[in-house]
Protein backbone atom coordinates (compact mmCIF):
# COMPACT_ATOMS: atom_id res chain seq x y z
CA UNK A 1 0.00 0.00 0.00
CA UNK A 2 2.89 2.30 0.60
CA UNK A 3 4.57 2.05 -2.74
CA UNK A 4 2.73 4.97 -4.36
CA UNK A 5 3.15 7.45 -1.55
CA UNK A 6 6.80 6.53 -1.25
CA UNK A 7 7.45 7.48 -4.83
CA UNK A 8 5.73 10.79 -4.30
CA UNK A 9 7.90 11.88 -1.36
CA UNK A 10 11.04 10.58 -2.96
CA UNK A 11 10.80 12.85 -5.99
CA UNK A 12 11.80 16.21 -4.47
CA UNK A 13 14.22 14.63 -2.06
CA UNK A 14 16.06 12.58 -4.66
CA UNK A 15 16.25 15.61 -6.93
CA UNK A 16 17.88 17.49 -4.07
CA UNK A 17 20.33 14.64 -3.42
CA UNK A 18 21.22 14.38 -7.11
CA UNK A 19 21.68 18.11 -7.56
CA UNK A 20 23.37 19.16 -4.35
CA UNK A 21 25.06 16.05 -2.99
CA UNK A 22 26.08 13.81 -5.89
CA UNK A 23 26.60 16.40 -8.62
CA UNK A 24 28.92 18.70 -6.63
CA UNK A 25 31.20 15.84 -5.64
CA UNK A 26 31.38 14.57 -9.22
CA UNK A 27 32.04 18.10 -10.47
CA UNK A 28 34.89 18.56 -8.01
CA UNK A 29 36.38 15.31 -9.22
CA UNK A 30 35.87 16.34 -12.84
CA UNK A 31 37.47 19.75 -12.38
CA UNK A 32 40.50 18.27 -10.66
CA UNK A 33 41.62 16.92 -14.05
CA UNK A 34 41.82 20.31 -15.69
CA UNK A 35 44.60 22.83 -15.43
CA UNK A 36 44.16 26.57 -15.35
CA UNK A 37 43.87 26.81 -19.15
CA UNK A 38 41.18 24.17 -19.35
CA UNK A 39 43.45 21.39 -20.61
CA UNK A 40 42.79 17.84 -19.53
CA UNK A 41 45.81 16.71 -17.49
CA UNK A 42 47.01 14.92 -14.43
CA UNK A 43 49.29 17.82 -13.60
CA UNK A 44 47.26 18.90 -10.58
CA UNK A 45 47.78 15.53 -8.98
CA UNK A 46 51.48 15.60 -9.84
CA UNK A 47 51.66 19.06 -8.33
CA UNK A 48 49.93 17.91 -5.18
CA UNK A 49 52.74 15.44 -4.56
CA UNK A 50 55.43 18.09 -4.71
CA UNK A 51 57.02 19.15 -1.40
CA UNK A 52 55.13 22.47 -1.30
CA UNK A 53 51.72 20.87 -1.17
CA UNK A 54 52.77 17.86 0.87
CA UNK A 55 54.25 20.16 3.48
CA UNK A 56 51.05 22.17 3.55
CA UNK A 57 48.95 19.03 3.90
CA UNK A 58 51.17 17.79 6.67
CA UNK A 59 51.04 21.06 8.59
CA UNK A 60 47.30 21.22 8.11
CA UNK A 61 46.94 17.77 9.63
CA UNK A 62 49.33 18.69 12.41
CA UNK A 63 47.34 21.79 13.37
CA UNK A 64 44.07 19.89 13.15
CA UNK A 65 45.57 17.21 15.38
CA UNK A 66 46.75 19.77 17.94
CA UNK A 67 43.39 21.52 17.93
CA UNK A 68 41.51 18.25 18.37
CA UNK A 69 43.81 17.09 21.12
CA UNK A 70 43.61 20.29 23.14
CA UNK A 71 39.86 20.47 22.65
CA UNK A 72 39.54 16.92 23.94
CA UNK A 73 41.82 17.60 26.90
CA UNK A 74 39.76 20.61 27.92
CA UNK A 75 36.37 19.17 27.04
CA UNK A 76 36.56 15.82 28.78
CA UNK A 77 36.95 17.20 32.32
CA UNK A 78 34.22 19.76 31.67
CA UNK A 79 31.81 17.10 30.47
CA UNK A 80 32.72 14.86 33.35
CA UNK A 81 32.20 17.57 35.93
CA UNK A 82 28.99 18.70 34.27
CA UNK A 83 27.42 15.27 34.68
CA UNK A 84 28.16 15.53 38.39
CA UNK A 85 26.41 18.87 38.89
CA UNK A 86 22.84 19.33 39.97
CA UNK A 87 21.51 21.40 37.09
CA UNK A 88 23.45 19.58 34.40
CA UNK A 89 20.99 20.16 31.56
CA UNK A 90 20.88 23.88 32.23
CA UNK A 91 24.67 24.13 32.46
CA UNK A 92 25.00 22.13 29.27
CA UNK A 93 22.68 24.58 27.55
CA UNK A 94 24.87 27.42 28.81
CA UNK A 95 27.94 25.70 27.36
CA UNK A 96 26.28 25.27 24.00
CA UNK A 97 24.82 28.77 23.88
CA UNK A 98 28.02 30.51 22.67
CA UNK A 99 28.22 28.13 19.74
CA UNK A 100 25.04 29.68 18.36
CA UNK A 101 26.70 33.04 18.09
CA UNK A 102 28.17 33.86 14.75
CA UNK A 103 31.67 32.45 14.42
CA UNK A 104 32.93 35.64 12.82
CA UNK A 105 31.97 37.68 15.84
CA UNK A 106 33.85 35.40 18.18
CA UNK A 107 36.92 35.57 15.99
CA UNK A 108 36.56 39.33 15.87
CA UNK A 109 36.33 39.50 19.68
CA UNK A 110 39.65 37.72 19.89
CA UNK A 111 41.24 40.24 17.56
CA UNK A 112 40.42 42.78 20.25
CA UNK A 113 41.40 40.63 23.21
CA UNK A 114 44.69 39.40 21.77
CA UNK A 115 45.63 42.74 20.23
CA UNK A 116 48.70 44.64 21.33
CA UNK A 117 46.72 46.67 23.88
CA UNK A 118 44.02 44.08 24.43
CA UNK A 119 42.83 42.42 27.60
CA UNK A 120 45.23 39.49 27.33
CA UNK A 121 48.25 41.75 27.20
CA UNK A 122 46.99 43.93 30.05
CA UNK A 123 46.71 40.76 32.06
CA UNK A 124 50.26 39.70 31.16
CA UNK A 125 51.42 43.19 32.09
CA UNK A 126 49.79 42.93 35.51
CA UNK A 127 51.30 39.58 36.37
CA UNK A 128 54.68 40.88 35.29
CA UNK A 129 55.39 39.07 32.06
CA UNK A 130 54.95 42.13 29.92
CA UNK A 131 53.40 42.76 26.55
CA UNK A 132 53.80 40.00 23.99
CA UNK A 133 52.80 39.54 20.41
CA UNK A 134 49.82 37.21 20.79
CA UNK A 135 47.70 37.84 17.74
CA UNK A 136 49.04 36.22 14.56
CA UNK A 137 50.85 33.43 16.40
CA UNK A 138 50.29 29.68 16.51
CA UNK A 139 49.13 30.04 20.07
CA UNK A 140 46.31 32.43 19.23
CA UNK A 141 45.23 30.31 16.28
CA UNK A 142 45.02 27.13 18.34
CA UNK A 143 43.45 28.88 21.32
CA UNK A 144 40.67 30.45 19.27
CA UNK A 145 40.05 27.21 17.37
CA UNK A 146 39.77 25.27 20.62
CA UNK A 147 37.43 27.94 21.93
CA UNK A 148 35.20 27.63 18.91
CA UNK A 149 35.15 23.83 18.75
CA UNK A 150 34.79 23.23 22.49
CA UNK A 151 30.97 22.96 22.64
CA UNK A 152 30.96 20.48 19.75
CA UNK A 153 33.36 18.23 21.63
CA UNK A 154 31.57 18.56 24.96
CA UNK A 155 28.15 17.57 23.64
CA UNK A 156 28.87 13.97 22.53
CA UNK A 157 31.18 13.29 25.47
CA UNK A 158 28.61 14.62 27.89
CA UNK A 159 25.95 12.38 26.38
CA UNK A 160 28.22 9.34 26.59
CA UNK A 161 29.11 10.08 30.21
CA UNK A 162 25.49 10.71 31.05
CA UNK A 163 24.49 7.30 29.73
CA UNK A 164 27.23 5.59 31.72
CA UNK A 165 25.77 3.36 34.39
CA UNK A 166 27.07 4.75 37.72
CA UNK A 167 26.95 1.34 39.37
CA UNK A 168 29.85 0.28 37.13
CA UNK A 169 31.97 3.03 38.65
CA UNK A 170 30.81 2.06 42.13
CA UNK A 171 31.64 -1.56 41.44
CA UNK A 172 35.11 -0.61 40.31
CA UNK A 173 35.62 1.46 43.46
CA UNK A 174 34.34 -1.34 45.66
CA UNK A 175 36.73 -3.75 44.04
CA UNK A 176 39.59 -1.56 45.13
CA UNK A 177 40.48 0.27 41.95
CA UNK A 178 42.01 3.68 42.37
CA UNK A 179 40.36 6.71 40.79
CA UNK A 180 42.83 6.70 37.93
CA UNK A 181 42.41 2.98 37.25
CA UNK A 182 38.63 3.39 37.32
CA UNK A 183 38.92 6.17 34.79
CA UNK A 184 41.36 4.32 32.59
CA UNK A 185 39.70 0.92 32.65
CA UNK A 186 36.02 1.71 33.12
CA UNK A 187 34.92 5.27 32.41
CA UNK A 188 37.07 6.12 29.41
CA UNK A 189 36.56 2.86 27.47
CA UNK A 190 32.80 3.11 27.98
CA UNK A 191 32.66 6.66 26.69
CA UNK A 192 35.04 6.14 23.79
CA UNK A 193 32.19 6.44 21.29
CA UNK A 194 31.45 9.94 22.49
CA UNK A 195 35.13 10.84 22.30
CA UNK A 196 35.32 9.46 18.77
CA UNK A 197 32.36 11.38 17.48
CA UNK A 198 33.63 14.50 19.22
CA UNK A 199 37.01 14.14 17.54
CA UNK A 200 35.32 13.58 14.20
CA UNK A 201 33.19 16.69 14.61
CA UNK A 202 36.27 18.76 15.46
CA UNK A 203 38.99 17.28 13.25
CA UNK A 204 37.25 17.57 9.89
CA UNK A 205 36.37 21.28 10.19
CA UNK A 206 39.78 21.95 11.76
CA UNK A 207 41.41 20.62 8.60
CA UNK A 208 39.50 23.06 6.51
CA UNK A 209 39.43 26.22 8.59
CA UNK A 210 40.11 29.20 6.44
CA UNK A 211 38.56 32.22 8.01
CA UNK A 212 40.43 31.91 11.30
CA UNK A 213 43.76 31.43 9.59
CA UNK A 214 43.31 34.82 7.96
CA UNK A 215 41.86 36.76 10.87
CA UNK A 216 43.70 35.22 13.82
CA UNK A 217 46.79 33.57 12.40
CA UNK A 218 47.45 36.37 9.93
CA UNK A 219 48.01 34.04 6.96
CA UNK A 220 50.89 32.34 8.75
CA UNK A 221 49.03 29.07 8.98
CA UNK A 222 47.92 27.53 5.71
CA UNK A 223 45.41 24.74 6.02
CA UNK A 224 43.84 22.70 3.25
CA UNK A 225 40.82 24.94 3.57
CA UNK A 226 42.87 28.09 3.10
CA UNK A 227 44.53 26.57 0.06
CA UNK A 228 41.20 25.67 -1.51
CA UNK A 229 39.82 29.13 -0.88
CA UNK A 230 43.00 30.67 -2.27
CA UNK A 231 42.81 28.64 -5.47
CA UNK A 232 39.12 29.16 -6.06
CA UNK A 233 38.68 32.80 -5.14
CA UNK A 234 42.10 34.42 -5.51
CA UNK A 235 44.23 32.71 -8.15
CA UNK A 236 41.19 31.26 -9.96
CA UNK A 237 43.03 27.98 -10.46
CA UNK A 238 39.94 25.88 -9.94
CA UNK A 239 41.58 22.66 -11.10
CA UNK A 240 44.22 22.76 -8.39
CA UNK A 241 41.64 23.84 -5.81
CA UNK A 242 39.43 20.93 -6.82
CA UNK A 243 42.39 18.53 -6.53
CA UNK A 244 43.05 19.65 -2.97
CA UNK A 245 39.32 19.31 -2.32
CA UNK A 246 39.44 15.73 -3.60
CA UNK A 247 42.18 14.92 -1.11
CA UNK A 248 40.27 16.66 1.65
CA UNK A 249 37.22 14.55 0.82
CA UNK A 250 39.37 11.40 0.90
CA UNK A 251 40.78 12.45 4.27
CA UNK A 252 37.27 13.10 5.50
CA UNK A 253 36.02 9.67 4.46
CA UNK A 254 39.04 8.00 6.08
CA UNK A 255 38.46 9.85 9.33
CA UNK A 256 34.82 8.89 9.32
CA UNK A 257 35.67 5.25 8.81
CA UNK A 258 38.33 5.48 11.50
CA UNK A 259 36.08 7.10 14.08
CA UNK A 260 32.89 5.43 12.92
CA UNK A 261 30.85 3.61 15.46
CA UNK A 262 30.26 -0.07 15.01
CA UNK A 263 26.60 0.37 15.60
CA UNK A 264 23.73 -0.36 13.29
CA UNK A 265 22.49 2.62 11.31
CA UNK A 266 24.14 5.87 10.46
CA UNK A 267 25.37 8.74 12.60
Amino acid at each position, binding site marked *: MKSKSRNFYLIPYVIWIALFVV*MPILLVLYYSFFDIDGQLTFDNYKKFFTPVYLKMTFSSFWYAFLITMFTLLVAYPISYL*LTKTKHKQLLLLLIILPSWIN*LLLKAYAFIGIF*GTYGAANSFLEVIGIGTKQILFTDFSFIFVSVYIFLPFMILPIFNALDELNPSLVDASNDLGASKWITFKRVIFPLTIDGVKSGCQIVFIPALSLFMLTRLIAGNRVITLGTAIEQHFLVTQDWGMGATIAVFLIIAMVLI*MILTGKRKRGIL
Partner: protein
Amino acid sequence: MKKLSKLSTVYLIIMFFILYAPILYLMFYSFNSGGTMYHFEGFTLDWYKELFGDSRLLIIVLNTAIIALLSAAISTILGVAGALAIYYARRRRVKNTLLSLNNVLIVSPDVIIGASFLILFTMVGIKLGFISVLLAHIAFSVPIVVIMVLPKIEEMNTSMIYAALDLGASRWDVLTKVVLPYITPGIFAGFFMALTYSLDDFAVTFFVTGNGFTTLSVEIYSLARRGVSLNINALSTLLFIFTMLLVVGYYFITKRNNKPGRMGVR
Protein backbone atom coordinates in the same frame (compact mmCIF):
# COMPACT_ATOMS: atom_id res chain seq x y z
CA MET B 1 25.83 12.13 44.74
CA LYS B 2 29.00 13.63 46.07
CA LYS B 3 29.50 17.35 45.86
CA LEU B 4 32.14 18.67 43.51
CA SER B 5 35.52 19.37 44.98
CA LYS B 6 36.72 22.96 45.18
CA LEU B 7 39.21 22.46 42.37
CA SER B 8 36.56 21.08 40.03
CA THR B 9 34.20 23.95 40.75
CA VAL B 10 36.95 26.46 40.09
CA TYR B 11 37.77 24.71 36.80
CA LEU B 12 34.16 24.84 35.68
CA ILE B 13 33.82 28.48 36.65
CA ILE B 14 36.98 29.43 34.76
CA MET B 15 35.77 27.55 31.71
CA PHE B 16 32.41 29.30 31.78
CA PHE B 17 34.20 32.59 32.16
CA ILE B 18 36.41 31.90 29.14
CA LEU B 19 33.41 30.83 27.10
CA TYR B 20 31.51 34.01 27.75
CA ALA B 21 34.31 36.54 28.18
CA PRO B 22 34.85 37.28 24.46
CA ILE B 23 31.17 37.90 23.88
CA LEU B 24 30.83 40.17 26.89
CA TYR B 25 34.06 41.91 25.91
CA LEU B 26 32.60 42.73 22.52
CA MET B 27 29.38 44.00 24.02
CA PHE B 28 31.14 46.08 26.63
CA TYR B 29 33.27 47.97 24.13
CA SER B 30 30.32 48.66 21.88
CA PHE B 31 29.55 51.45 24.37
CA ASN B 32 33.06 52.87 24.30
CA SER B 33 33.32 56.43 23.05
CA GLY B 34 37.07 55.99 22.60
CA GLY B 35 36.74 54.07 19.34
CA THR B 36 39.08 51.21 20.26
CA MET B 37 38.68 47.82 21.84
CA TYR B 38 41.13 48.39 24.69
CA HIS B 39 40.75 51.72 26.38
CA PHE B 40 37.30 52.51 27.74
CA GLU B 41 36.82 56.27 27.70
CA GLY B 42 33.18 56.85 28.30
CA PHE B 43 29.72 55.59 27.67
CA THR B 44 28.16 56.34 24.31
CA LEU B 45 25.46 55.05 22.02
CA ASP B 46 27.05 56.62 18.96
CA TRP B 47 28.00 53.28 17.42
CA TYR B 48 24.42 52.16 17.53
CA LYS B 49 23.28 55.44 16.01
CA GLU B 50 25.85 55.05 13.27
CA LEU B 51 24.70 51.48 12.72
CA PHE B 52 21.09 52.49 12.23
CA GLY B 53 22.11 55.37 10.02
CA ASP B 54 24.09 53.10 7.70
CA SER B 55 21.58 52.23 5.01
CA ARG B 56 23.97 49.89 3.19
CA LEU B 57 24.35 47.80 6.30
CA LEU B 58 20.61 47.78 6.91
CA ILE B 59 20.08 46.43 3.42
CA ILE B 60 22.61 43.70 4.17
CA VAL B 61 20.75 42.83 7.36
CA LEU B 62 17.53 42.68 5.38
CA ASN B 63 19.18 40.44 2.76
CA THR B 64 20.43 38.12 5.45
CA ALA B 65 17.01 37.90 7.06
CA ILE B 66 15.25 37.25 3.74
CA ILE B 67 17.76 34.56 2.81
CA ALA B 68 17.44 32.93 6.22
CA LEU B 69 13.65 32.93 6.29
CA LEU B 70 13.20 31.84 2.68
CA SER B 71 15.84 29.13 2.81
CA ALA B 72 14.53 27.84 6.15
CA ALA B 73 10.95 27.70 4.84
CA ILE B 74 11.83 25.96 1.58
CA SER B 75 14.32 23.58 3.16
CA THR B 76 11.73 22.68 5.80
CA ILE B 77 9.29 21.61 3.09
CA LEU B 78 12.00 19.64 1.28
CA GLY B 79 13.30 18.21 4.53
CA VAL B 80 9.88 16.98 5.63
CA ALA B 81 9.41 15.34 2.25
CA GLY B 82 12.85 13.79 2.66
CA ALA B 83 12.10 12.49 6.13
CA LEU B 84 8.83 11.00 4.89
CA ALA B 85 10.65 9.46 1.94
CA ILE B 86 13.15 7.83 4.28
CA TYR B 87 10.37 6.71 6.60
CA TYR B 88 8.32 5.15 3.83
CA ALA B 89 11.32 3.45 2.23
CA ARG B 90 10.57 -0.22 2.79
CA ARG B 91 13.95 -1.76 2.18
CA ARG B 92 16.65 -1.24 4.77
CA ARG B 93 19.25 -0.75 2.03
CA VAL B 94 17.39 2.13 0.43
CA LYS B 95 16.83 3.69 3.82
CA ASN B 96 20.50 3.51 4.77
CA THR B 97 21.65 4.81 1.40
CA LEU B 98 19.30 7.77 1.66
CA LEU B 99 20.47 8.49 5.20
CA SER B 100 24.14 8.31 4.23
CA LEU B 101 23.61 10.65 1.29
CA ASN B 102 21.64 12.93 3.58
CA ASN B 103 24.53 13.14 6.01
CA VAL B 104 27.17 13.91 3.40
CA LEU B 105 26.45 17.62 3.56
CA ILE B 106 26.32 17.63 7.35
CA VAL B 107 29.83 16.24 7.74
CA SER B 108 31.40 17.96 4.74
CA PRO B 109 33.57 20.92 5.59
CA ASP B 110 32.09 24.25 4.56
CA VAL B 111 34.95 24.87 2.19
CA ILE B 112 34.13 21.77 0.17
CA ILE B 113 30.44 22.63 0.07
CA GLY B 114 31.25 26.18 -0.96
CA ALA B 115 33.77 25.24 -3.64
CA SER B 116 31.64 22.48 -5.14
CA PHE B 117 28.54 24.69 -5.21
CA LEU B 118 30.57 27.41 -6.85
CA ILE B 119 31.50 24.97 -9.61
CA LEU B 120 27.90 23.75 -9.85
CA PHE B 121 26.37 27.21 -10.16
CA THR B 122 28.94 28.31 -12.69
CA MET B 123 28.41 25.18 -14.78
CA VAL B 124 24.63 25.46 -14.73
CA GLY B 125 24.90 29.16 -15.46
CA ILE B 126 23.28 30.62 -12.36
CA LYS B 127 24.50 34.13 -11.77
CA LEU B 128 26.28 34.47 -8.45
CA GLY B 129 24.21 36.61 -6.11
CA PHE B 130 20.89 36.33 -4.33
CA ILE B 131 19.70 33.19 -6.13
CA SER B 132 22.95 31.26 -5.74
CA VAL B 133 23.21 32.10 -2.04
CA LEU B 134 19.57 31.15 -1.50
CA LEU B 135 19.98 27.83 -3.31
CA ALA B 136 23.15 27.02 -1.38
CA HIS B 137 21.48 27.77 1.95
CA ILE B 138 18.47 25.64 1.06
CA ALA B 139 20.80 22.84 0.00
CA PHE B 140 22.78 22.66 3.22
CA SER B 141 19.74 23.15 5.45
CA VAL B 142 17.71 20.25 4.04
CA PRO B 143 19.69 17.45 5.74
CA ILE B 144 19.45 19.24 9.09
CA VAL B 145 15.67 19.43 8.81
CA VAL B 146 15.57 15.74 7.88
CA ILE B 147 17.62 14.85 10.96
CA MET B 148 15.31 16.89 13.18
CA VAL B 149 12.05 15.58 11.71
CA LEU B 150 12.90 11.90 11.20
CA PRO B 151 12.97 10.82 14.88
CA LYS B 152 9.55 12.39 15.36
CA ILE B 153 8.10 10.42 12.45
CA GLU B 154 9.73 7.21 13.57
CA GLU B 155 8.22 7.45 17.04
CA MET B 156 4.75 7.89 15.54
CA ASN B 157 2.44 4.96 16.05
CA THR B 158 1.82 3.30 12.67
CA SER B 159 -1.60 2.11 13.75
CA MET B 160 -2.75 5.73 13.63
CA ILE B 161 -2.11 5.74 9.90
CA TYR B 162 -3.85 2.42 9.40
CA ALA B 163 -6.78 3.59 11.52
CA ALA B 164 -7.13 6.71 9.40
CA LEU B 165 -6.96 4.66 6.20
CA ASP B 166 -9.52 2.19 7.54
CA LEU B 167 -11.83 5.04 8.38
CA GLY B 168 -11.71 6.09 4.76
CA ALA B 169 -9.15 8.88 4.79
CA SER B 170 -7.41 9.59 1.53
CA ARG B 171 -3.65 9.61 1.40
CA TRP B 172 -3.68 13.39 1.42
CA ASP B 173 -5.93 13.38 4.50
CA VAL B 174 -3.56 11.01 6.27
CA LEU B 175 -0.70 13.39 5.58
CA THR B 176 -2.41 16.64 6.53
CA LYS B 177 -4.64 15.42 9.35
CA VAL B 178 -2.58 12.69 11.01
CA VAL B 179 1.11 12.78 10.12
CA LEU B 180 1.81 16.50 9.86
CA PRO B 181 0.02 17.52 13.07
CA TYR B 182 1.88 14.80 14.91
CA ILE B 183 5.32 15.87 13.69
CA THR B 184 4.70 19.63 13.93
CA PRO B 185 7.14 20.11 16.84
CA GLY B 186 9.84 18.37 14.84
CA ILE B 187 9.08 20.56 11.86
CA PHE B 188 9.38 23.70 13.96
CA ALA B 189 12.64 22.51 15.47
CA GLY B 190 13.95 21.82 11.98
CA PHE B 191 12.85 25.24 10.79
CA PHE B 192 14.64 26.97 13.65
CA MET B 193 17.78 24.95 13.10
CA ALA B 194 17.76 25.80 9.40
CA LEU B 195 17.26 29.44 10.32
CA THR B 196 20.24 29.53 12.65
CA TYR B 197 22.43 27.61 10.22
CA SER B 198 21.61 30.08 7.50
CA LEU B 199 22.22 33.09 9.74
CA ASP B 200 25.49 31.61 10.95
CA ASP B 201 26.90 30.50 7.68
CA PHE B 202 29.96 32.27 6.45
CA ALA B 203 32.13 29.94 4.40
CA VAL B 204 29.57 28.65 1.91
CA THR B 205 28.11 32.10 1.36
CA PHE B 206 31.59 33.51 0.92
CA PHE B 207 32.16 31.16 -2.00
CA VAL B 208 28.89 31.51 -3.85
CA THR B 209 28.18 35.18 -3.35
CA GLY B 210 29.08 37.45 -6.20
CA ASN B 211 30.24 41.01 -6.08
CA GLY B 212 26.93 42.75 -5.65
CA PHE B 213 25.37 40.65 -2.92
CA THR B 214 26.54 40.28 0.68
CA THR B 215 25.18 38.76 3.85
CA LEU B 216 26.01 39.85 7.34
CA SER B 217 28.68 37.21 7.99
CA VAL B 218 30.57 38.07 4.82
CA GLU B 219 30.30 41.76 5.60
CA ILE B 220 31.63 41.26 9.12
CA TYR B 221 34.52 39.29 7.66
CA SER B 222 35.52 42.03 5.27
CA LEU B 223 35.14 44.66 8.00
CA ALA B 224 37.15 42.59 10.49
CA ARG B 225 39.94 42.12 7.96
CA ARG B 226 40.33 45.86 7.86
CA GLY B 227 40.74 45.92 11.64
CA VAL B 228 38.72 46.92 14.64
CA SER B 229 35.74 49.18 14.21
CA LEU B 230 33.23 49.51 17.00
CA ASN B 231 30.35 49.38 14.55
CA ILE B 232 30.91 45.65 14.49
CA ASN B 233 30.72 45.57 18.27
CA ALA B 234 27.38 47.33 18.25
CA LEU B 235 26.19 45.01 15.52
CA SER B 236 27.33 41.94 17.41
CA THR B 237 25.57 43.06 20.57
CA LEU B 238 22.32 43.29 18.64
CA LEU B 239 23.00 39.95 16.95
CA PHE B 240 23.76 38.38 20.31
CA ILE B 241 20.43 39.52 21.71
CA PHE B 242 18.66 38.31 18.59
CA THR B 243 20.39 34.92 18.78
CA MET B 244 19.41 34.57 22.40
CA LEU B 245 15.78 35.22 21.47
CA LEU B 246 16.00 32.56 18.78
CA VAL B 247 17.55 30.07 21.19
CA VAL B 248 14.89 30.74 23.79
CA GLY B 249 12.23 30.25 21.13
CA TYR B 250 13.87 27.04 20.04
CA TYR B 251 14.16 25.89 23.64
CA PHE B 252 10.44 26.32 24.24
CA ILE B 253 9.60 24.48 21.05
CA THR B 254 11.74 21.49 21.95
CA LYS B 255 10.31 21.59 25.45
CA ARG B 256 6.81 21.33 24.02
CA ASN B 257 8.21 18.65 21.78
CA ASN B 258 9.03 16.46 24.75
CA LYS B 259 5.68 16.85 26.40
CA PRO B 260 3.60 13.79 25.61
CA GLY B 261 -0.09 13.83 24.80
CA ARG B 262 -2.32 16.31 23.03
CA MET B 263 -0.21 16.08 19.89
CA GLY B 264 -2.20 13.33 18.23
CA VAL B 265 -5.51 15.14 18.23
CA ARG B 266 -5.94 18.68 17.20
